[in-house]
């Protein structure tokens, strides 16, 4: 387990196997009884020169011509794996302490669900699955939530093209 402090916020980086235990400890021993949010981030293409925010693929348009919107310098963070999942916890007591629990994982790996600890995680985890393709082990109902049930792909991934969704023309029967 690793602790980081930046911008006045505390981040606990844990391995996926330790997550359930860490969350239980934070909830029961440290009083973080309010799960505010679960955010997943895709770091594919992070620190690649000339790219900021979007990677063009053959199936999509690259809206950023290289070197027009590039980085001033390469970012310092070296993401250990492709995705991060951040759990933002809040302690309902004076001072409103917050902590971020962060798990890193690669495509195809999964993290344990925290629905049994914080029931509000239900929809947050479904959203992370739907939009980012993060799999949560032990979630009772891990199905798409914002996109259509038969949607393909996970739109918030960096390799998901913008403007690349198939358009059906009536002449192309």
């Amino acid at each position, binding site marked *: 387990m690793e602790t980081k402090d930046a911008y006045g916020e505390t981040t606990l980086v844990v391995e996926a196997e330790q997550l359930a235990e860490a969350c239980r400890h934070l909830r029961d021993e440290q009083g973080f009884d309010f799960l505010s949010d679960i955010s997943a981030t895709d770091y594919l293409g992070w620190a690649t020169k000339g790219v900021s925010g979007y990677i063009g693929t053959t199936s999509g348009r690259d809206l950023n011509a290289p070197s027009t919107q590039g*980085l001033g310098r390469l970012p310092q963070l070296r993401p250990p794996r492709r995705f991060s999942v951040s759990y*933002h916890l809040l302690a309902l007591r004076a001072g409103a302490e917050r902590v971020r629990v962060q798990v890193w994982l690669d495509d195809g790996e999964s993290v344990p669900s925290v629905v049994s600890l914080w029931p509000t995680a239900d929809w947050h985890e479904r959203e992370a699955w739907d939009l980012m393709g993060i799999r949560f082990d032990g979630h009772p109902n891990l199905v798409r939530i914002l996109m259509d049930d038969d949607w393909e792909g996970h*739109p918030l991934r960096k390799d998901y093209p*913008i403007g690349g969704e198939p358009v059906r023309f009536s002449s192309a029967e």
Partner: protein
Amino acid sequence: MAIAPERPRIYEGTRIPAPTPSVLEVPEELRDSDDILQVNFGPNHPSTHGVLRLVVDLSGEEVVGLRAVIGYLHTGFEKNMEQKTWWKGITYPERIDYVSFQTNELVFVLAIEKLLALEVPEKATWMRMLLCELNRIHSHLVWLATAALEIGAISMFWYCFRERDQILDLSEMVCGARMHTRYFQAGGLAEDIPSGFFPECRKFVERMPKAVDDYEGLVDRNQIWLGRTVGIGLLSAEDAIAMGQSGPVLRGSGVDWDLRKQQPYLAYDEVDFGVPLRQGGDVYDRYRVRMEEMRESTRIVDQCLDRLDEMEGRPWIADDRKVVLPPREELHTSMESLIHHFKIVTEGYRVPEGEVYVVVESPRGELGCYVVSDGGPKPWRVKFRAPSFAATAAAPTLSRGALVADLIAIIGSLDGLMGEVDR
């Protein structure tokens, strides 16, 4: 827990459905019965505040199963914001929650400023607070108007929209747009406050408490209103916390929690206001909390006006030429200013690498914004923690054993705004 430990118990145990907290399943013994009727409530129903679809299982008039289907208003704001410079991205959050647009704008701007470590002039802070409180009144007015309309108090709609319009007039006066003002910039405000704003705003502050009295006169002791709201949609404090509820829903369940008090941002520690609290956890209590909040917000607006009066002629935006657009008049005479203007507009400013999670108390509760920057001119990732998202997920917890007519009152009392739920 330390907050309001003397709360009475509304009900024993928990009402959160298991195993899926957001799905109320038909009980085993009823499953094969012929009397279960499955009804699709929405997505295009006037009382769903947008496009919420509820799949309701009814046994007679009683709700025995409930599942919310969302996503009809999913617009991909978060993905879009990754393609826009920080500067342009400010227009997006307002449209996520189009009723409390000012608060959403604030949370994103605060996140940018946190990464940039930008000092904001005092005048901008107080004006932001003023507009956010006006916006809270605006949001509660829209809630009251529509929620009352849905359960039969039709005339309320016209009264509430009368005052709502005055607030929109004030917005228009400040920035030219009635909604989605984009008045907050990283560093402060887009323009100085027009001098005509103050007398008009004072008129509104004088008018508003009387208006709240009027609304209360219409429904507060109205037998039909009480019958439709008291004891309906119960939510205990423990369940509310477990389901991530915030704002008036949490305070209506007896949890004394308001970020403006517990984690003062802007200048909330310098103004005097109360946090309305109710213990009953029903639709009526959530209504009462919002009514009182309108009064308290009016008081905050009044105090902000007094402070802003003393700040005439002071700067309204930070003096940081790498982030803030130079004054318009300088563009004609200064090459330096013209270059800065051009660079900020075309390339945008770069925001230092890092991740922050900024939270404010929106009219609906805990509104969070998680931002990751790679040091470039565009956000790497933006994620909004929408209070409506959590509130809508709690609908099955509140609706256990409710009648189908109560369901409308319950969904209304949660104040879920579909733009924010679906983003």
